[in-house]
């Protein structure tokens, strides 16, 4: 296969990768025919933004249990962690926080008046094999925290 500009077929690569590890049941990726949609009903300049990442605030192993977590946006950590997640360790790195956690740019957009404001905290959603766990446990918990934060819009950034 040539190194073309076509998007990487992650679903197929992942299926083959785990098959090579002897896992017999292929992962069923989430798929829906319908897509919910909430229009933006006021200017960005009047919106308070919530930020959610799949990275974590602490180092953890791939086998460690993962839970919803939150951190400060006003005094953000110097880095986030993704050692337990699948990303391209050979091609790149996570040493530049801004390449996966753009809190500085978001603050600048608030200073410029482009965005109304930022929530005081960001949230970390666990990457879970179980879609039921995400939909019935973690997503409701993230929503609960975002509602506490009184945000209007959410920027979601998976590693």
């Amino acid at each position, binding site marked *: *296969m040539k190194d073309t500009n*076509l998007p*990487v*077929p*992650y*679903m197929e690569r992942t299926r083959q*990768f785990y098959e*090579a*590890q*002897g*896992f017999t049941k292929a992962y069923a*990726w*989430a*798929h*829906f025919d319908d*897509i*919910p*949609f*909430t*229009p*933006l009903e006021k200017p960005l300049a009047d919106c308070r933004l*919530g930020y*959610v990442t799949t990275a974590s605030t602490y180092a953890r192993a791939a*086998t460690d*249990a*993962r839970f919803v977590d939150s951190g400060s946006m006003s005094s953000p950590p110097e880095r986030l962690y993704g050692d337990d997640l*699948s*990303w*391209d360790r*050979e*091609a*790149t*790195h*996570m*040493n530049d926080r*801004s*390449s*996966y956690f*753009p809190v500085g740019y*978001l603050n*600048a*957009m608030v200073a410029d008046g*482009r965005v109304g404001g930022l929530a005081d905290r960001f949230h970390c*959603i666990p990457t*879970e094999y179980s879609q039921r*766990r995400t*939909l019935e*446990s973690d*997503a*409701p918990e*993230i*929503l609960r925290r*975002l509602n506490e934060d009184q945000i*209007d*819009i*959410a*920027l*979601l*950034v*998976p590693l």
Partner: protein
Amino acid sequence: MSLLSRYLEGAGIPTVILGSAWDIVEYCGVPRFLYTDFPLGNPCGQPGDSSMQADIVARALSLLETATAPGRIVETPYVFTGTTPWRDRYLEINDENREMLRQKGEARRAERARLRAEGKVRTE
């Protein structure tokens, strides 16, 4: 993250995903997705390139304004600068790593079984 995007949107919060796994996000179906053709790990842009990163974040927020229907996917123009043919190398299986992967799978299943026996996995 795609599932969360759908969940929040259904609860009345406009969302935008900023990332690089085009096929996974597109297959799930999300309201708004700003895609950059980068290796997984740097969804906001090339490490060290602050002007690119700032632009990608700005484009993501603009998508909240411009998308008028669900399933809107916009691609940024950026090309990853790296030395490896990363598209082909990611999760590559070849004769050099085939046996290692088989052993890794066995070790992983054993570790999972041990953690489950010790009650160290999520149950809810």
